[in-house]
């Protein structure tokens, strides 16, 4: 397909590129492979990952194939500010979770998943809410990444979509299966280095192939006033704000991030997160510039599909060598995220399901490793099947996003406030999810008092998001005051206005409603939790594990 519109590799070339990538990655993992792996190392590398590998792994995991396409689409749609509204907020969320991450590590230095911490704090129901949302989120992520592989292979070669899906699935599973998270981190480093090198070359190459900065300057006349405005309200309301709210939830709720948080040496958390923030922002915003350049040259995406923007620009203006590099860039990004998803799911099944709920903190390490590897195989099969048949499960992503949005405040509050109860956690998440659905799918008419009430709840949600950020960096008092002030200001602006932006309204409502429920139900109870219990309950599973970092 697309022979006359995109550059086409021969079947042999594309298979050679894939064999080079996955074969090289597999060989790399042989450097660390052990006949008998250790369960704690399999899940979090014994909490001993250094700054360089930690930052590389965090960045590579946060970047997936959709990051490039999304940033380019944003640049093409919203103009000058578009790439910033995709990449900047995604980057800031890595930074945002760092202060909370330090708290998580302090409370549970031996944790493998955030669910274990929540289990120690509240018990099984809260833990399993978190674990199930993570499993669902990672399955969707796997499917999306395998789909991206299928699409790329079918666009740039005579191979079929299904062939691309299967090759990515088998390739990722082959190098992750034995050593788990250890393999994921090591290969993330190599994949990120490759991605960065390619991004560093491709962005200026496209610009100069177009005719240099003068062509861009001439292209400014093609932009609408909104697209030419760095502070475009259209871009903020339709791209920046919804994305900001969504990735905040993703950062807190997703095991791929918390797994790295628990794996990095405690004294390296800060530089790791700061470097990953800047690295992610630079790569993703940079590749978003290709979408902006496409807009400035008046290019139309083939078939109106925005996902064609980058392949089209690269095919049109660069030599086959660069197209090959672009191919590696996309395969690297989707593989690094897919292997992280496999590691995340295996850790959840091993620690949250088997370790805590079946073996009751006394697991058999051999059985635990078997469960982890079996999880990877089953998850890959599910991801490949869903992607191969192009099943429309993206609607589930809406629910996962909502669930994670509703989880953010209860999780953070549970780690700082001793009065939050299991009942408060669970009811807050359920209430947030229900109200999200009511708003998102407009189950009640969005008019009059109802719409006004929803907008007020969304304003509370906005205050919660901004207040939590202030709380993370400046402390409880400033966070509380700032969050309250933001909620009041937002209420003034939101009422009568936000009802037209359903996605943003519903997302913010998930935050607002879950926060109100969490606080209200917690205040009804007088019990106080002793945080020192968490460290006692969250343990290492493998007796052969070396001493952890002090």
């Amino acid at each position, binding site marked *: 397909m697309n022979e006359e519109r995109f550059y086409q590799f021969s079947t042999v070339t594309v298979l050679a590129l894939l064999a080079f990538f996955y074969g090289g990655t597999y060989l790399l993992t042989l450097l*660390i492979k052990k006949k008998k792996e250790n369960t704690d*190392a399999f899940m979090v*590398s014994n909490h*001993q*990952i*250094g*700054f*360089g*590998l930690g*930052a*590389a792994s965090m*960045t590579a995991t946060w970047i997936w194939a959709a990051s490039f396409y999304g940033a380019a689409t944003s640049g093409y749609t919203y103009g*000058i500010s578009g790439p910033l509204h995709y990449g900047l907020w995604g980057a800031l969320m890595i930074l945002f979770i760092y202060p909370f991450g330090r708290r998580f590590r302090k409370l549970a230095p031996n944790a493998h998943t955030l669910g274990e911490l929540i289990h120690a704090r509240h018990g099984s129901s809260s833990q399993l809410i978190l674990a199930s949302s993570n499993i669902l989120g990672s399955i969707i992520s796997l499917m999306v990444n395998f789909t991206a592989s299928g699409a790329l292979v079918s666009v740039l070669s005579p191979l079929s979509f299904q062939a691309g899906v299967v090759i990515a699935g088998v390739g990722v599973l082959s190098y992750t299966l034995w050593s788990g998270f*250890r393999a994921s*981190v*090591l290969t993330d*480093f190599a994949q*990120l*280095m490759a991605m*960065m*090198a390619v*991004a*560093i*070359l491709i*962005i*200026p190459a496209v*610009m100069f192939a177009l005719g*240099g*900065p*003068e062509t*861009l*300057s001439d292209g*400014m006349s093609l932009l609408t006033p909104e697209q030419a405005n760095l502070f475009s309200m259209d871009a903020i309301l339709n791209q920046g704000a919804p994305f900001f709210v969504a990735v905040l939830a993703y950062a807190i709720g997703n095991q791929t991030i918390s797994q790295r948080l628990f794996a990095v040496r405690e004294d390296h958390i800060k530089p790791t997160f700061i*470097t990953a923030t*800047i*690295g992610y*922002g*630079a*790569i993703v*915003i*940079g590749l978003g*510039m290709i979408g*902006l*350049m496409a807009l400035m040259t008046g290019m139309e995406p083939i078939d109106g599909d925005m996902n064609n923007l980058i392949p089209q620009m690269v095919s049109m203006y660069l030599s086959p060598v660069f197209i090959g590099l672009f191919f590696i860039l996309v395969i690297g990004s989707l593989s690094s995220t897919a292997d992280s998803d496999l590691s995340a799911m295996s850790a959840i099944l091993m620690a949250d399901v088997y370790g805590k709920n079946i073996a009751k903190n006394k697991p058999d390490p051999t059985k635990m490793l078997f469960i982890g590897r079996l999880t990877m195989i089953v998850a890959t099969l599910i991801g490949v099947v869903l992607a191969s048949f192009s099943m429309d499960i993206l609607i589930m992503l809406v629910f996962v996003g909502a669930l994670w949005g509703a989880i953010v405040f209860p999780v953070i509050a549970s780690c700082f406030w001793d009065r939050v109860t299991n009942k408060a956690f669970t009811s807050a998440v359920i209430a947030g999810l229900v109200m999200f659905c009511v708003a998102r799918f407009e189950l009640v008419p969005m008019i009059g008092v109802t719409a006004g009430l929803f907008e007020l709840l969304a304003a509370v949600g906005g205050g919660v998001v901004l207040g939590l950020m202030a709380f993370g960096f400046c402390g409880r008092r400033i966070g509380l005051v700032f969050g309250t002030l933001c909620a009041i200001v937002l209420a003034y602006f939101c009422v009568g206005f936000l009802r037209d932006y359903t996605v943003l309204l519903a997302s913010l409502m998930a935050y607002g409603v879950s926060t109100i429920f969490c606080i209200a139900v917690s205040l009804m109870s007088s019990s106080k939790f002793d945080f020192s219990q968490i460290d006692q309950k969250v343990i290492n599973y493998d007796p052969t594990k*070396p001493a952890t970092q002090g």
Partner: protein
Amino acid sequence: MQTFILALYVLIWPLISLVIFAVIGIATVKDIRIARRDKRELV
């Protein structure tokens, strides 16, 4: 001036990526040295 600003706006990102590339690369070499010195595994 507009041409210069636009070029800077596009090219600053690969430049920052290059800096981070170097930072992560150097830090990882250090990680490898420390792991060897302490006789423990890198990951």
